[in-house]
């Protein structure tokens, strides 16, 4: 089986280091389906409820999601896609050209670690569904550490199965995820409609009043911070920051015939990050209403209550189909650092790290903060690519400097990365800016730093030469 899988992998040509040829480019339709599927995932079962827990008001959520998702779509269309279709190479190869192989290696390691944590949170989400028949005590919003021995056992079993599948059959999982996507979004919608009468919505005209009074009440749960419309806008915009502003989707959009394919991300934003977040928020609000504001936070039982077996399986499938490719991607990122190691061995190690992380419910309870941190950490490199591509030629600076000069570590890019993150930390510590708001000033700081450091670095290098 392994031999057959390896043979199949060897036949795949991904044009990693050469521009995608015209005959392999895809129409906007392919991207529409991909984005809609990718952004209707296990995370949606957590994010919608966390908005409710953080006391987002109904109007703030409706407006915040329209604006935030629109900004995300525009970021894909105007920041990521134009560079992707012009270069038609992967993010990693573009980074090697600008930053050099050593800096790219560090980036890959950080990226892999983030992928492990993300996949870990999804395994934990699946565990809340798998645990239902075992009467597993579910974690609460305040739980950071493993809540019981049974929790650890279930997480480890799911983690092992997910890892083995990622080692052997990524293609099949990817296919299954595509098949599951339309069904999952209908389960979200269906489950939300089914429970509406339980909070007092008996006709469409009742909805808005109940939404304000019983669903998105504007009052956070005990121990949770209050979210405003600004939190919603910036979270919706930056939750995929690594993908658009951080340029990770260069690797996908390089297959697009036109940069306008970036607009197809709207399918993911307004189906997954709008409808699914609203629906999962309704499900959680019904749970809170019925349980008199219990602090238990477990998507599995909530979906099971609303949609029965189909709901629980949806949570399991959503968590699993998100965790699986994420482990696979993390494995690929690590393999680029250790090219002599077998892929399956690396995926196994990555899976073990992911499973260990999944034992800690903190990853689920703090998913909003983690997702924001993930985007923030990778964002400066996106700014480096953007500035290198658009502004360096205008300042008479050399693009793709690492490739041009043969260096393996571009200090201008490396310092930009570190200094930007230090500035963001300082803004958080001394100005009290929450993590959700750091991405925007952080991007401009990274852009200015890279221009200044790039100018200095290139002049020094040229003088040395």
């Amino acid at each position, binding site marked *: 089986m392994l031999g057959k899988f390896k043979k199949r992998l060897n036949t795949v040509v991904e044009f990693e280091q050469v521009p995608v040829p015209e005959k392999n480019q895809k129409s906007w339709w392919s991207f529409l389906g991909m984005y809609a599927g990718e952004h209707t995932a296990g995370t949606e079962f957590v994010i919608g409820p966390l908005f409710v827990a953080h006391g987002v008001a109904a109007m703030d959520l409706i407006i915040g999601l329209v604006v935030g998702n629109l900004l995300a779509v525009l970021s894909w269309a105007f920041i990521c896609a134009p560079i992707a279709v012009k270069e038609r190479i992967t993010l990693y190869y573009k980074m090697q050209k600008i930053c050099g192989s050593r800096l790219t290696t560090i980036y890959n390691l950080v990226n892999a670690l983030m992928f492990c944590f993300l996949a870990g949170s999804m395994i934990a989400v699946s565990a809340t569904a798998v645990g239902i028949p075992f009467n597993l005590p579910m974690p609460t919003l305040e739980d950071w550490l493993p809540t019981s021995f049974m929790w650890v056992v279930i997480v480890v079993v799911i983690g092992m199965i997910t890892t083995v599948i990622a080692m052997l059959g990524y293609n099949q999982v990817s296919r299954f995820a595509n*098949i599951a996507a339309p*069904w999952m979004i209908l*389960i979200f919608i*269906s489950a939300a*409609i*089914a429970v509406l*009468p339980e909070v007092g919505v008996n006709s469409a005209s009742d909805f808005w009043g109940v939404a304000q009074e019983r669903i998105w009440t504007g009052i956070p749960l005990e121990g949770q911070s209050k979210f405003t419309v600004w939190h919603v806008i910036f979270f919706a915009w930056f939750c995929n920051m690594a993908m658009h502003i951080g340029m990770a989707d260069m690797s996908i959009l390089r297959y697009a015939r036109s940069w306008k394919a970036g607009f197809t991300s709207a399918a993911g934003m307004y189906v997954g990050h709008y409808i699914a977040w609203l629906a999962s928020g309704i499900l959680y609000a019904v749970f809170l209403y019925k349980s008199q504001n219990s602090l238990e936070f477990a998507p599995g039982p909530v979906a099971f209550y609303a*949609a*029965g077996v189909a709901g629980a399986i949806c949570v399991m499938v959503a968590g699993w189909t998100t965790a699986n490719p994420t482990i696979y991607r993390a494995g690929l990122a690590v393999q680029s650092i250790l090219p002599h190691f077998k892929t399956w061995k690396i995926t196994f190690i990555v899976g073990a790290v992911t499973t260990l992380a999944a034992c800690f419910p903190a990853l689920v309870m703090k998913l909003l903060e983690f997702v924001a941190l993930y985007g923030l950490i990778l964002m400066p490199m996106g700014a480096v690519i953007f500035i290198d591509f658009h502004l360096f030629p205008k300042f008479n600076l050399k693009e793709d400097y690492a490739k041009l000069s043969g260096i393996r570590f571009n200090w201008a890019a490396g310092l930009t990365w570190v200094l930007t993150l230090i500035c963001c930390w300082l803004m958080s510590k001394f100005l009290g800016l929450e993590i959700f708001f750091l991405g925007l000033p952080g991007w401009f700081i990274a852009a200015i730093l890279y221009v200044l450091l790039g100018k200095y670095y290139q002049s020094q290098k040229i003088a040395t030469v």
Partner: protein
Amino acid sequence: MKSGSLNIIMWIIAFIGLGLTIIPSFLLFSGGIDSSACKTLMAVGMVVWFAARISVKNQ
């Protein structure tokens, strides 16, 4: 039966599965069925969708 015709039938069955996933919730909302029937129909819809949709791909 030709593979193309079978594919079309499988697609129709798959969409019936999706219908069974979403329509029961509207029936529950309007008071036409109870919660237990709704959940059963959604479970049937799930099985029908996956069985038919996977069959489409396998041909």
